[in-house]
């Protein structure tokens, strides 16, 4: 005789150790099996897009820090690139290099957090995270040297960067770049062949290639599904065409591939950093830009390859000092739309792991 059972609803979040912020998943469970998932977003909404319409182009830079707070520098970068595209401002070469150095350092820091917390979701309580934090800490120290901040940097300016690097920065960064590959080896030695990690992530939460393209996924989530799409290569911005690096691509699109792609991207970022340090020229770091910038009327979409995917800023100018429209394309919100397809039929533990492997940041999703 079959026992009559019925699915029940479990609220994962908004206060839950694995939601990486204040995010709520309304999960319908049949025993341990996920039947339905309904993401509820908006707990961190601050109305940044509307606020930005009342402030000048320069005043908006600190807002971008608060989007993906684990990669503030890249957010700055994306925004100032969009404004420079709109106002057609030339940036000094040294500033371009500094921006790329910061962006790649930020990518390493962001991926370290992503992998660390992904392992935390898998149940390796805190140990991988703390090892990843050891390196992230060095990066944060470097950022602190440059701009005095450790989380919200507000370093880039329209037309350059706010200040030149101090003299102790380059030796410290060179030391970091020399050491980092051995640390990545250490992580891979601990994690990449771990029997339990393989069992928990291989084939779990698969995002097929065509689905990934259809939902406009980007970043490591898209590349893990086997699509070789990196804006640094596909639409080179700034001076990325001068560097030699590869785009790691997964082939299945499961949680393990997403983990693996991030691990390899850190190696590529170290390569870019090495080259940038070699080529770094002298000179100015800030172009002559008027204090109250009035870009010509028009619209622009500037996008970059942020650690979590394609971060875009769509700006409309009406030739005043503030943007008429300020829209953000957050990569993780769009990646997150695939979550439901990826987790239905899996266990509740897989739901947490798949969600962790998406590497979302709620500051960016709710903005």
């Amino acid at each position, binding site marked *: 005789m079959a026992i009559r059972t019925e699915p029940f609803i479990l609220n994962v979040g908004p206060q839950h150790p694995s939601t990486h912020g204040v995010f709520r998943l309304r999960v319908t469970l049949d025993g341990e099996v996920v039947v339905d998932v309904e993401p509820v977003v908006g707990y961190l909404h601050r109305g940044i897009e509307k606020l930005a319409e009342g402030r000048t182009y320069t005043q908006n830079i600190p807002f971008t820090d608060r989007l993906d707070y684990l990669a503030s520098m890249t957010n700055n970068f994306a925004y100032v690139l969009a404004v420079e595209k709109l106002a057609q401002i030339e940036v000094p070469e040294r500033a371009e290099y500094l921006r790329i150095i910061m962006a790649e350092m930020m990518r390493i820091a962001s991926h370290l957090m992503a992998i660390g917390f992904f392992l935390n979701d898998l149940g390796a309580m805190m140990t991988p995270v703390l090892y990843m934090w050891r390196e992230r800490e060095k990066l944060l120290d470097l950022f602190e040297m440059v701009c005095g901040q450790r989380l919200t940097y507000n370093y880039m300016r329209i037309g350059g960067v706010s200040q030149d690097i101090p003299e102790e920065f380059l030796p410290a960064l060179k030391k970091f770049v020399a050491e980092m590959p051995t640390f990545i080896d250490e992580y891979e030695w601990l994690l990449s062949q771990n029997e339990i*990690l393989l069992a928990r992530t291989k084939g779990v939460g698969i995002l097929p290639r065509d689905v990934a393209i259809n939902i406009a996924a980007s970043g490591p989530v898209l590349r893990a599904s086997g699509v070789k799409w990196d804006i640094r290569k596909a639409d080179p911005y700034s001076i990325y065409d001068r560097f030699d690096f590869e785009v790691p691509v997964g082939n299945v699109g499961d949680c393990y591939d997403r983990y693996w792609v991030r691990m390899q991207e850190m190696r590529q970022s170290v390569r870019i950093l090495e080259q940038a340090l070699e080529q770094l020229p002298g000179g100015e770091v800030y172009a002559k830009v008027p204090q109250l910038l009035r870009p010509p009327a028009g619209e622009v979409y500037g996008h970059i390859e942020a650690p979590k995917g394609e971060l875009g800023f769509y700006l409309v100018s009406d030739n005043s000092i503030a943007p008429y429209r300020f829209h953000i394309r957050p990569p993780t919100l769009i990646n997150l739309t695939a979550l439901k397809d990826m987790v239905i039929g899996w266990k509740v533990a897989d739901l947490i792991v798949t969600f962790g492997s998406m590497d979302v940041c709620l500051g960016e999703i709710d903005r």
Partner: protein
Amino acid sequence: MTLLEQFRLWLATILPGWEWLAYVVPAIVGIVVILGFVLTMVIVFIWYERRLLGRFQIRLGPNRLGPEGVFQPIATAVKILLKEDVVPEKGDKVLHWLAPVIVFVPVLMIFAVVPFGERAILADLNVGIVYVVAISSISVVGIYAAGWASNNKYALISALRTVAQMVSYELPLILAIVGVVLMAGSLSMTQIVASQDIPFFILQPLGFVIFFLGTLAELNRCPFDLLEADSEIVAGYHIEYSGMKFAMFYLGEYGHALAYSCIIATLFLGGWQGPLLPPIMWLVIKALVVFSTIVWIRGTLPRLRVDQLMAFAWKGLLPMAIINLFMIAAEVLWLPETMLWIMGAVNLILAAGLILMWSKLFTLGGGRVEV
């Protein structure tokens, strides 16, 4: 004759006409000594785990209160005692109160048969190891009751996981114990220790590994800590507990870890036997070594999924335990007693071969269910 029995006989001689006192006093003395030992060691274990885990995670761990932070567990205890006791409004209040007791009491009862020395044992039962297995299973009922009484979905998932996990892992655990019993020729804990001229983990390595893994599951330790899975079901069955009731679970968990560390030491590592130091020190040292390994595993490995956990018990550990049992039975039957070392070598090769074979042939697998 144990020390307590000797004490009782001596009391009977000096208290003629008060023979019942000669039964009551030694029992109370024994209980007080064991309680003192367990609670002290639990505090040591809590401090030790936090410090050791800190080292594994490149941080210091608690180091402020007292030398090397040794008083930190006391501060934790005071904090927990001062907390408000919250009972869920729609929960089952009686069960909610009873569950921590059901979890904690069996843990203390296990120590009745743990031999701390040649004659230092509270009750030298002739079925000691059966008693251990029977008593330690009771705490599952407590965990299930806690999960049910909390009226919380996370707690309920945890409670159901508990039952499945415990039932599955008790089988390989008991089969591994049977191997020990066959070799010792007795169910009594003192006899098992006495028969270990060569510690049993050398003579039956596979049994030791199986017992150790089963123990990890019994203790809800990583990688089998599914019922407290922080990242999934937050804290599992004790999510709705606070104050002293939570402390009971906490003490029960570490008490259980202490009890099973002592039992592993007794069954496989030669118990209290050892040169120079007093017997109880040897037992504590061996228990600490076992516990350190448990903490080490906790500090390294991710968690298994629930279906993989089941697969590992039923397809991995259970067949291996059965093969191990038959192999040891055959060796005990046919090999002469003087050839123990040959037995150890054969079993080591068997263990290595079986583990290698299983790691190649067997995958944890599991996966998507059509809904």
